[in-house]
């Protein structure tokens, strides 16, 4: 009964039925596909702008600064759109001694991986774009395409800096995918489903992080660290490592090609946070506290996508906080952290969660 105020599926069904009544079904599906595609791209761009703006403001506040405050009034709201316009007008430089095809392909691979993963996020009840029964598995698979783009970018640029950056990134992402996989698996064990929508709906009577108590909290932390590494963000940004490799794997890129890497970095941050929200913080589920029915009613009136975006941005802020506090790790430390600390821990957590589940110790 609750949550149904904002369920989008009846509305979408109606639209689909209406379209089918005025045109053949294949046309209706194509049309819907187009609309949804454009919607994803627009959302992607808008979120990127919001995230970049947020990063600049948050980072400024951590550094006792104000941040953008000139373009577009006191808050500097138009700064990022202005930057986007600027980057669109910039020349895309082609290098003489690079592998032209791979060089041009790499940024698209990165952005493709990012968009595919982005499409799986559960925005609202009935508001998911890609829905399949192995959703979370698909997310893991799709996000791995990104590292291919990074490796290709580094290799095809034919520069020593980019090559070192790419190899670092490859080593790092492949390692951290283990931890991500294991912590996701932990939550799959807990929810008993791989379908994202089912996982979210399973949290109607309490978010996983509360229901799964100790193992869930530990898996959450592991996921955040590994996800941060996966998104190539500080303190794991050694693939870019400005102070060592100038810009790492995208040193030789310019214009919108560079823009793609840049966009993907921010969206990957959002996706990492979004998946964390889905798995641990109940996705679009409102906060419910057992026994306080009045409060729960009020919470239900807040639409699901507000919950989802709110929780996701909270995690984004957490990740920014981490990024703007710590110095960068060295490549051997990154690998030590994964193989000596995170991986064993996530195995233990998985075991713990399984035990809890078997003995019914989760709520």
């Amino acid at each position, binding site marked *: 009964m609750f949550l149904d105020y904002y369920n989008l599926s009846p509305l979408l069904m109606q639209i689909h039925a209406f379209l089918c009544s005025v045109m053949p079904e294949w046309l209706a599906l194509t049309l819907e596909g187009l609309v949804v595609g454009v919607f994803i791209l627009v959302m992607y761009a808008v979120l990127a702008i919001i995230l970049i703006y947020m990063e600049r403001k948050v980072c400024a506040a951590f550094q006792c600064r104000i941040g953008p405050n000139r373009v577009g009034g006191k808050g500097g709201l138009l700064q990022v759109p202005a930057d986007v316009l600027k980057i669109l007008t910039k020349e895309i430089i082609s290098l003489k001694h690079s592998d032209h095809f791979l060089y041009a392909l790499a940024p698209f691979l990165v952005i493709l991986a990012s968009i595919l993963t982005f499409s799986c996020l559960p925005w609202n009840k009935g508001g998911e774009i890609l829905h399949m029964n192995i959703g979370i598995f698909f997310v893991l698979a799709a996000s791995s395409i990104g590292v291919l783009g990074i490796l290709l970018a580094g290799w095809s640029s034919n520069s*020593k800096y980019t090559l*070192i950056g790419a190899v670092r990134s490859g080593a790092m992402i492949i390692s951290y995918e283990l931890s991500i996989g294991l912590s996701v698996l932990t939550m799959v064990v807990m929810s008993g489903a791989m379908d994202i929508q089912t996982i979210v709906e399973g949290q109607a009577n309490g978010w996983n992080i509360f229901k799964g108590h100790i193992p869930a909290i530990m898996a959450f932390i592991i996921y955040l660290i590994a996800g941060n590494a996966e998104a190539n963000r500080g303190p794991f940004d050694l693939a870019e490592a400005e*102070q060592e490799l100038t810009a790492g794997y995208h040193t030789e890129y310019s214009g919108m090609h560079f823009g793609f890497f840049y966009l993907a970095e921010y969206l990957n941050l959002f996706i990492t946070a979004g998946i964390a929200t889905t798995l641990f913080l109940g996705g679009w589920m409102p906060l419910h506290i057992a026994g306080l029915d009045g409060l729960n009613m009020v919470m239900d009136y807040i639409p699901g996508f507000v919950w989802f975006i709110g929780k996701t941005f909270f995690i984004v802020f957490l990740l920014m906080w981490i990024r*703007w*506090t710590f*110095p*960068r790790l*060295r490549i051997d*430390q990154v690998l030590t952290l994964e193989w000596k600390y995170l991986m064993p821990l996530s195995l233990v957590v998985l075991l713990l969660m399984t035990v809890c589940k078997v003995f019914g110790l989760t709520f």
Partner: protein
Amino acid sequence: MEIEKITSIIPEAEISQTGETVVKVPAEKLHQIAETLLNDKENPMDFLRDIVGMDWGEEGLGALYLLESTRTGARIILKAVTADREKALLPTVSDLWKTALIKEREVYDFFGICFLNHPDMRRIFLREDWIGYPMRKDYDMNSNPLRMDNEENADMTDEYFLRPDGTLEGRKNVVFGEDDFVVNIGPQHPSTHGVLRMRTSLDGENIRKIDPILGYIHRGIEKMNESLTYPQTLALTDRLDYLSAHQNRHALCMCIEKAAGIEVPERAQYIRTIMDELQRIDSHLLFYSCLVMDMGGLTPFFYGFREREMILDIFEETTGGRLIQNYNMIGGVQADIHPTFQQKVKDFIKHLRSVIQDYHNIFTSNVIADTRLKGVGVLSKEDAISLGCTGGTGRASGWANDVRKHHPYALYNKVDFKEIVYTEGDSFARYMVRMDEIMESCHIIEQLIDNIPEGEFRAKTKPIIKLPEGVFTSSVETSRGEFDVVLESHGDKVPYRLHYRSTGLPLVHAMDTVCRGAKIADLIAIGGTLDFVIPDIDR
């Protein structure tokens, strides 16, 4: 004492006592004497402060060797001359002191003196295709057009030695071989702190060899000084190591005052000492900021700058300059301290003491920073002395080399302060030396700030300053090591030769020793902890 030792080996050594004591030894005996002095039992001259190339005109080309004993602090200056201007040869001392490896290259670059058996006789600051030797007095200023083409760096280098029959023979040495994966770190790189270029040979992420290429902002300050009057030369010292601007100028003023016999009023001495220490805090705060940023922590970077800005404001109020202060004058300081100076300095120190814990919380104790700094880039005490790594770098390796303690100047023998010495010699020790020195400098300032005596802030000097003939030196402890001024005067109102000991040159030279086997990320962190400033290296 050392002089007796030298005369016992070669009785014909000439000793000149105008200004500093300079012992002239025959070129062919230089190596033997150097070796004797170095291997002396109770007073080993193990620290080669500097090699100063000279063109004495008629007398020939040559060099001054400034030696010091790290055990007793005794100092001596050797002079070696070769009369042959076409084929100027001196024996190398690079097998005795490693720092001579790079100092002799500098002399070769500027004076064309070839050092026999030196394994690497390349130019250091100027282009490899430079014509002539610019610091010679007969150098034709128009012999080098402005070259716009790329400079190719040779992978081979020359070594010269004498055959037994007295003819010169050359040999090629390899800098980088065919199978070296050489990456250019610099000259345009975010964390070389200026236009320094390090050709780095890599093995995966590990460093095999570093060859620094210098001179991208060489301005020929020493050559310019030869045509400037003494007050005018002061204007250039601030531009050497801009983070030790005040201390550099202090050294030159002291040297000229010593030569001219000018007594500096006590008030000026107090002001100079306080300013020196403020400058040191300023520099070390910047060191913190830059090191943290080099290691990827962008937030603490701003903490350092936040506090440094307050020092710059204090500087500006009194001296009129923030980075380039032009405050010391021959005989005193440019202007009296601003009425608010004392209060502001006291407020600043109070503020600094309250926020310094934040610095340590966010970085020093952080597990990432710890593992990246501890045990990385170890420089042994022997190497530090042999390479001439003075300042915080040497003190982190256990070499007590603080000029303020061992050769006190200004008011340093009147104030109480500790010489910060660590023994680990790793990046973390180098970092901690500087962080501790910030607090020690605060301590020094607190002792002086309330006791500045009334009186003149500048002694009266003649309108035109002429110095007596002779060699004069002075040394100060700048923010990053021992800074020496070597001044040879021929009685004119312009110096015949004015040389500055670069504090950063030995540090850059040490990069190769320290970084071998470390990772690229360590290279950057080590560069940060060695704390060099490029304009000071290139001069």
